[in-house]
């Protein structure tokens, strides 16, 4: 049953992407000085929103694991975090390509960019930490605690453009049709995230099955 659901969602996401790309490329007018480049924002901004949403979910489930000790929360937080890291990479690459043209430089130690990079480092460290620990229970406990520590950086990324002078574009008001394109693409990215999380969760269950089988194999 699970596979069928994933395939349906997959098809839906594909259709959504095609529709969004059509709208973004053809329907919307050009922006005065950026030319065609501004259209990257329809992927750049939603990918950061999706990553932020995912990392918040991961932070909550890590807290829930520490409170209740149920392994399913640990499975959810690792799946959601891993997918979030993928979306962080999308956000970073699209941002840097946009900066290369508009600012003329790939990277600048600007408050928003630096805190975002720290975010990638922290959650990358989380993933590396996980496969450094064998025992499932202490792996869950330690990675949940680290996830909460890493989560502190997410609001810093969000508010960095308000706290420090930053070259990063400030949130501005957009004409309604741009807003709708932005939100539609965000929906597509969220559905894509859900597919990845479902697949990753299934892998976690299979890993636990492997641990069980391995213990059985040793026990006999």
């Amino acid at each position, binding site marked *: 049953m699970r596979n069928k659901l994933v395939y349906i969602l997959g098809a839906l996401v594909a259709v959504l992407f095609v529709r969004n790309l059509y709208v973004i490329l053809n329907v919307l007018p050009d922006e005065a000085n950026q030319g065609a480049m501004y259209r990257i924002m329809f992927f750049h901004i939603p990918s950061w929103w999706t990553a932020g949403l995912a990392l918040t979910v991961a932070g909550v489930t890590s807290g829930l694991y520490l409170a209740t000790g149920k392994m399913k929360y640990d499975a959810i937080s690792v799946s959601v975090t891993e997918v979030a890291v993928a979306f962080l990479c999308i956000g970073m690459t699209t941002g840097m390509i946009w900066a290369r043209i508009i600012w003329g430089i790939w990277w600048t130690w600007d408050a928003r960019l630096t805190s975002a990079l720290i975010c990638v480092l922290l959650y990358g460290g989380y993933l590396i930490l996980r496969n450094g620990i064998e025992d499932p229970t202490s792996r869950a406990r330690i990675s949940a605690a680290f996830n909460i520590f890493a989560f502190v950086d997410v609001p810093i990324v969000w508010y960095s453009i308000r706290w420090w002078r930053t070259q990063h574009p400030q949130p501005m008001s957009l004409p309604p049709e741009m807003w709708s394109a932005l939100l539609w693409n965000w929906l597509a990215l969220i559905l894509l995230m859900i597919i990845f999380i479902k697949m990753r969760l299934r892998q976690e269950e299979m890993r*636990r099955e492997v641990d069980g089988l391995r213990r059985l194999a040793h026990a006999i």
Partner: protein
Amino acid sequence: MTHAVAADDVWKYYGDYPALREIRLAVEPGSCLALLGRNGAGKTTLLRIFAGFSKAGKGSVSIFGRDARDLETRRRVGILGHGISVYDELSAFENLTLFGRLYGVADRRKTALDWLERVGLRHVRDGLVREFSRGMRQRLAIARAFLHDPQVLLLDEPFTALDDRAIAVLQTVLRDALARQCTIVLSTHQLREAMELATHVALLARGRLAYHGERSAEMLSDPGWLYARYGES
């Protein structure tokens, strides 16, 4: 009348593997329970939950009706584990005053000196533990575990790897404690010294409680008797 030590339907998991299953156990004040079982049956896991080192996965553990992790409860529990839990860089006296202060013992210095006398280490009170022999370290561990006059004593295979002097000291300490109506839970491998003290016996097999009851005479004479009847042979 609350039990001294009680486990109410305790489960403990390592990942998906249930190290402890449905443990229901109650130990009355003044009695001494011997926890038996093969290696990996869950003796140490259960003892660590009683001692507050780890929490039960499901169910609960209580000491005099209160949670094992509660601060007041921990003040009344003395623990002697495999490790001697004293600091190599500190002297015998410093170790005991340190734990005396942590446990809020009233007159730390006098109590420390009394216990050093009792375990025969008074003459090396300022010597660093690093230079102590194995037997001296074990006796200091006994002093550190029972310095704060606990009402509940938890010991993990207490008599294994002790030298004869340390065994003598430990036996007198435990007999005193029983005389003063303290409660003792000790895990053991059928050692005669441990079985003599036990008033009750609990057998763990693969994480389950296979037997719990009075310690009868034949259990003492024939160590294999209990395993044959209840545990898997």
